[in-house]
């Protein structure tokens, strides 16, 4: 039996061929080393994300999240739900909180769930993958399997918004959370001083108002260079995509020469645990992390 077992909620962007598929690959490799068993919630659905607020209405949005709770409870009883995506985590936690504090909302949600042949008895705990790592395992346990420390490599730990606010990681401040820096150091890397650590990447506005989002992304990347970082690391799929894929567009617009890889913490951990470039899904990075590709090959 694995050391820890969870009901896994990977989310839409982590699926094969989707925008964060490299996140999923590296999380799977990392969990294998750490002996964490993640069982996908059967037939899970989208959380609705934050941006659907105008169209969804409160109850339909919460019903979508409640369906995942009911499926987890029915198929994986007693297991906490673990999300890797910031929006999935936030949407689930917000729904859990509202359902547990509003009996009218809960009653209506049960009526909706009944139409899908489901019901909620107890809503499982909902955790972000990062919480599993630092709360359920702890930095010491994360350090033990390190075979190849990322010595001499400089990273800007970009925490972003929704993994940090409004719930955040227990014991961390909203203004200067340290967990990502500590994770970088746990695998032997150097976390550079980074003053845009919790700045918003624009979120969904990267699609609807690209000029506004790209102005924010420009600041986020500039500060990473200013701190002396060679790469950016993040826990969020949308932060990762937004900060990585628009570098060309920003260069064109602002005359900058950005070319900085943006990685997931799980990719660093997989590599430090001795994993291959493939296991860390380095081929999934649009801005290739050449230094890490070489490192993985050694």
């Amino acid at each position: 039996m694995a050391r820890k077992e969870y009901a896994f909620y990977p989310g839409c962007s982590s699926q094969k061929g989707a925008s964060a598929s490299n996140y999923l690959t590296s999380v799977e490799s990392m969990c294998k080393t750490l002996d964490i068993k993640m069982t996908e919630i059967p037939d899970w659905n989208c959380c609705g994300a934050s941006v659907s607020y105008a169209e969804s209405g409160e109850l339909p949005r919460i019903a979508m999240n409640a369906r995942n709770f009911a499926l987890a409870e029915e198929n994986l009883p007693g297991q906490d739900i673990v999300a890797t995506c910031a929006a999935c985590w936030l949407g689930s936690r917000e729904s859990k909180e509202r359902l547990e504090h509003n009996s009218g909302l809960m009653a209506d949600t049960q009526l909706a769930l009944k139409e899908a042949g489901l019901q909620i008895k107890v809503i499982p705990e909902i955790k972000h993958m990062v919480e599993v790592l630092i709360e359920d395992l702890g930095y010491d346990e994360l350090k033990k399997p390190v075979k190849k420390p990322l010595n001499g490599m400089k990273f800007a730990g970009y925490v972003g918004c929704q993994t940090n606010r409004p719930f955040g990681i227990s014991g961390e401040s909203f203004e200067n959370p340290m967990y990502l820096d500590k994770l970088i150091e746990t695998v032997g890397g150097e976390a550079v001083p980074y003053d845009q650590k919790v700045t918003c990447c624009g979120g969904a506005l990267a699609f609807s108002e690209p000029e506004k989002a790209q102005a924010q992304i420009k600041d986020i990347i500039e500060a990473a260079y200013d701190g002396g970082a060679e790469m950016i690391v993040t826990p969020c799929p949308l932060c990762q995509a937004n900060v990585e894929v628009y570098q060309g567009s920003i260069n064109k617009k602002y005359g900058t020469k950005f070319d900085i890889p943006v990685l997931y913490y799980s990719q660093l951990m997989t590599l430090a645990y001795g994993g291959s470039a493939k296991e860390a899904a380095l081929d999934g990075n649009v801005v290739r992390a050449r230094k890490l590709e070489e490192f993985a090959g050694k």
Partner: protein
Amino acid sequence: MSDLNQKMAAKYQNNFLKEIEEQAEMGEWVKMCMQCGLCSGSCPTNFQAGWDHPPQELFMMIRAGKRDEVLKSNSMWMCTSCYNCYVRCPRKVPVTHVMHGIAEYAYRIGQSPKNQPTQHLSKTFWDNCTKTGRVNEVKLTQSLYFKDGIGSGIKKAMEMQSVALGLVKAKRLNLLEAVGIAHKCKDIKGIHAMLAKANELEAKRKAEKAEA
């Protein structure tokens, strides 16, 4: 004026604060604002052009009964859901949710700005993810590019070509999704039945509030 808008304006006369408190999700928090402005200073989109009113200004305008200006404002639609205002507010006002609530109410009664891009995204995203239970990223992108017609859609798609190519090369964009070969939930029927019920109950709640 839409029927619902006329009805609401008549119901609340000049008491717009009461209207927001009763009709908008989280609207009951507006009166807690003490006008310190921390939300406005914390907002990442406040530093960019096109912002009519920062949150604390909107809250004061609601109290002052500036109904049209508030409902027709584009300000709420600038929210990136970063939750900076939410965690910093000294009065613990969930500013992010209040902004979403006012936006949704303005949209529901037909008073929100037309062709507002994030409003369009909100609808497109929800329709997209509830159709099969999971987001179809290719179709989502297509419907965003082509919202203003084919000509401007092709132009936008051309501009974004290198971004798309990079993602395809990295196996993070599956073009087959365009023809519906995509990840889906198995029990789509159950999801649709559940949402139909949820929509029915949501409409009932809102109608009850409007009639109360």
